């Protein structure tokens, strides 16, 4: 059991800056995120895209913003629990008990949800019969590539993951690459490589096709793919890989007794607390009159939510407002040398 003042859910820009604001006022926190790295949507959806509306920064990429935020919170030596997801929370006297899917347990007086629009999960095939094969012969990520040796693998998608795995698996497997249109969005060098492999007869490329059905009892025997012109093609195959990027799912948050407005959590704008005492929501996941989904709004929300946590973490103390320019205690927390 890890004891802390605040558990922060989500390591996107809003969660990262909130760590800073908690640190500044002397509260300890631990952060859990479903992704294997920090940065949230900034790093997962648009690491290379420029952002132009961060105050005082004319232009930076999602990755640069993430790195700067990580740099800024270094003095607080915060623990990040990545590739993990908060599954269960329970009220226990004045604390929340929190459990993750990996079995980690936390005790905290407050929880700050900075969860974006939920946790990232792979997008799946829309065909119903896929469900019973998912995790076995229908996969959305590769953990052990040796299972494909000498088998037939049908890869769906047009991005880098689909292209990279097509190239990689073509060494030891029979591979079809299937995509809904002729253009691929992956890097040009990979597209060229895949086309070269096709010429050499090592890969079959089928475009303007989408999956229409899956056949098989306990194991997949074949799939059918449908061309834009309506014609159907049958392929005998052993494995089906789908690479359609990630989607955000609210996940277990819906079970925590929080009011929900569509996929958002209503909060008050005084301290961004939810209907549950001691649970705060900031960033894209929260909603209130006038809410805009800007990173800078998330920063503001985090600053106020951090202060909102203080009364739960230090019920006998009053939080004194201080400026980082002059406060001795803030300088100590930041490790500023005189």
């Amino acid at each position, binding site marked *: 059991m890890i004891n802390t003042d605040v558990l922060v859910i989500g390591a996107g820009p809003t969660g990262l800056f909130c760590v800073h604001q908690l640190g500044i006022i002397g509260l300890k926190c631990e952060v859990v995120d479903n992704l294997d790295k920090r940065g949230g949507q900034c790093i997962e959806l648009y690491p290379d895209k420029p952002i132009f509306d961060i105050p005082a920064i004319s232009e930076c990429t999602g990755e640069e913003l993430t790195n700067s935020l990580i740099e800024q919170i270094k003095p607080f030596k915060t623990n990040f629990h990545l590739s993990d997801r908060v599954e269960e929370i329970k009220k226990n006297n004045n604390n929340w008990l929190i459990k993750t899917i990996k079995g980690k347990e936390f005790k905290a007086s407050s929880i700050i949800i900075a969860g974006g629009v939920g946790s990232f999960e792979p997008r799946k095939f*829309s065909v119903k019969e896929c469900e019973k094969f998912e995790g076995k012969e229908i996969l959305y990520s590769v953990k052990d590539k040796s299972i494909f040796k000498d088998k037939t693998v049908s890869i769906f998608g047009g991005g880098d993951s689909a292209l990279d795995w097509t190239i990689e698996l073509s060494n030891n497997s029979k591979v079809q690459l299937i995509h809904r249109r002729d253009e691929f969005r992956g890097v040009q060098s990979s597209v060229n490589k895949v086309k070269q492999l096709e010429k050499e007869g090592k890969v079959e490329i089928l475009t303007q096709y989408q999956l229409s059905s899956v056949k098989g009892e306990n194991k997949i025997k074949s799939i059918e793919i449908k061309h834009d012109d309506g014609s159907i093609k049958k392929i005998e195959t052993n494995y089906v890989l789908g690479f359609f990027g990630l*989607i955000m799912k609210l996940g277990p948050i819906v079970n925590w007794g929080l009011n929900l407005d569509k996929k958002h959590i209503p909060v008050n704008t005084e301290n961004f607390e939810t209907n549950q005492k001691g649970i705060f929501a900031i960033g894209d996941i929260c909603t209130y009159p006038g809410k805009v989904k800007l990173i800078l709004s998330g920063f503001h929300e985090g600053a106020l939510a951090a202060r909102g946590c203080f009364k739960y973490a230090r019920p006998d103390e009053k939080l004194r407002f201080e400026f980082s320019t002059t406060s001795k205690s803030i300088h100590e927390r930041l490790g500023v040398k005189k």
Partner: protein
Amino acid sequence: MPKITYIEHIGKSHTIDIPKGLSVMEGAIQNNIPGIDADCGGGMACATCHVYVKEEWFDKLPKKEDGEEDMIDMAYEPNKFSRLSCQLIVSNELEGLVVNLPEKQA
């Protein structure tokens, strides 16, 4: 105000006056039309505001920007009339536009 018609997957139709300048996505969200999620809020980063544009309308719309077709690759059951509704800005030219919503967004 231009009238935009949203037809849900189950066939239920909603014709709504949408102020010029809003996107077709925002028009749906602000009027609580079920079937558009718009997770990323209009950043062409999630493909959860995917719609099928009525055939006769498709060629009249402004062409797709770079990146929209790439995102549509990830949409739920895309076809050749697929667009992201966050990229369709309501104007007089869009008066009477009809879009069909997919069964779900993901």
